[in-house]
């Protein structure tokens, strides 16, 4: 009842773990799948290893957290070994980032045979060296990166966009024009900042960090609603999901699948099982036969 097909890939349910959440190791991604996720998304990785920022990299704010991990990862060579350790039956999305179209294309090509889809992270609000949101705030650069990767690989390519732009619709249309196979909305919000009032010091080492958690859900819902109305490719909804009703809201807004991140803080991987059970129950009560019937329902009522 929960199963979907996304860019030609069959998923047992429409939930995935969001990029950057317990996602650098095969071990934790296997655990997440065993706990009920429909697919896994790796933490974003790059050609070379990256230690990321020093701590503090995370701090609580009302309705969520802000973080500036800085895209730490061991580099594509080591990630390939981890990807090999992820169970074969798991639908896998590799989240990748880089500083140039060539970087993206190289890294995507390296893992093409090991995963089912690529997700381009052009939108991290706390990336170093121009690797992050600076790309996803520029429709032309977004276009070039999608094209470069599409030219290199034949598996589906998703693009994850930042909400921190004047018009997310423009960026999404640019990505679609470059023939991306799907759009993931949204990366973390802001960036935001929290200052310690005893010392006047910004708490995060990077001063600012991307905001995630339930507080950003209204922004994510609006982005999904707006973008899904103007693009033909499927949209993945992400931002502040912590229960099945949040998933329903994203589906109604136009998301074909959803990603869950910060909620693992309190609920752990078990949240995927919980959501699947409750979502199926909700569908029965509301007479839905398939997830597809729910996708974009708000556009049709």
């Amino acid at each position, binding site marked *: 009842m929960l199963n979907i097909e996304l860019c030609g890939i069959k998923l047992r349910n429409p939930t995935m773990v969001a990029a950057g*959440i*317990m996602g650098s*190791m095969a071990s934790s991604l296997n655990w997440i799948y065993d706990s009920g996720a429909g697919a896994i998304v790796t933490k974003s990785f790059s050609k070379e*290893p990256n230690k990321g920022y020093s701590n*503090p990299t995370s701090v609580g704010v009302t309705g969520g957290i802000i973080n500036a991990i800085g895209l*730490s990862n061991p580099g594509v060579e080591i990630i390939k070994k981890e990807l090999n350790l992820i169970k074969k039956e798991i639908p896998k999305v590799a989240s990748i980032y880089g500083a140039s179209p060539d970087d993206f294309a190289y890294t995507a090509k390296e893992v093409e045979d090991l995963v089912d889809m690529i997700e381009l992270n052009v939108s991290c609000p706390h990336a170093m060296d121009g690797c992050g949101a600076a790309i996803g705030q520029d429709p032309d650069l977004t276009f070039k990166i999608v094209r470069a990767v599409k030219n290199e690989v034949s598996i589906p390519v998703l693009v994850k966009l930042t909400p921190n732009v004047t018009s997310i619709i423009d960026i999404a249309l640019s990505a679609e024009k470059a023939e991306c196979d799907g759009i993931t909305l949204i990366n973390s919000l802001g960036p935001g900042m929290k200052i*310690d009032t005893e010392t006047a010091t910004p708490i995060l080492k990077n001063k600012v960090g991307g905001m995630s958690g339930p507080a950003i859900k209204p922004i994510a819902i609006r982005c999904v609603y707006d973008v899904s109305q103007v693009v033909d490719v499927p949209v993945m909804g992400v931002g502040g999901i912590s229960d099945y009703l949040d998933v329903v809201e994203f589906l109604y807004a136009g998301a074909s699948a959803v990603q869950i991140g910060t909620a693992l803080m309190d609920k752990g991987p078990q949240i995927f099982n919980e959501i699947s059970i409750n979502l199926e129950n909700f569908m029965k009560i509301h007479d839905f036969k398939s997830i597809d019937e729910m996708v974009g329902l708000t556009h049709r009522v």
Partner: protein
Amino acid sequence: MHVPKVLKIKKILTESKSVKTFIFDWNFNDSLLKPEPGQFMMIWNFEDEKPMSISKIDFENNEIGISIKNIGSFTNALHQLNNGDKVGIRGPYGHGFEFNDFKKILAIGGGIGMAPIASFTEFAIKNNLDVDVISAATTSNELLYEDRLNDAGANVFTCTDDGSCGFKGFATHRMEDLLQNNVYDLIVTCGPEIMMKGVVELANKHNISVQISMERWMKCALGVCGQCCVDDSGWRICKEGPVFWADDLNNIKEFAKYKRDSSGIRNYY
């Protein structure tokens, strides 16, 4: 929630040649702030932030103690602080020791691994449990908490690698002796993983349950970043840990083998 509380250092105790304990006033009335033995805090010195065990939980005086071994630039910076200086404390975090209905416990700490063992022991004794403690160190002036835990009512057995104080030899040797003459229904241990591995093997031989306390590089400490996940269960040291039952080690195959650095690259022991 999850915001460092910036507090003034109330007292600093010099525990050994390389270990100081920093004492802070603490509000135990806030249930979210109430630590259990085995939990940890993220300590922020306005430059960096790292997980540290809670070595003292003093409900009577509304104080907590964080013991810091000077082993690098962060801990060295902390050692330069004085009374009245400020430090940020975020937590408590993690899954601590379980007490169930054990009666007689052997607690084994190696080096700075004695920190959670100290708060565990005092808490257990307050709850009328019998606790024998093995405090192990490389040499005599690194031994921790001997007087404090004796005063609390534990039987403290020291051992040093070089024999400069107490038993000469490893914690496991001392443990073997104690197991000859005592019947324990629980062993808890924190220290180098190689040491804990020995403790677990010996305990298994004697059919005694063991809880171990681990550490890994941490970033968020909130269970999301994945930095402290271990192979091959994927468990998070900051959430499912830092304290595990020895039986769980079947699912922590990297135990006593390797750890990951900040970028996720494995460093083998």
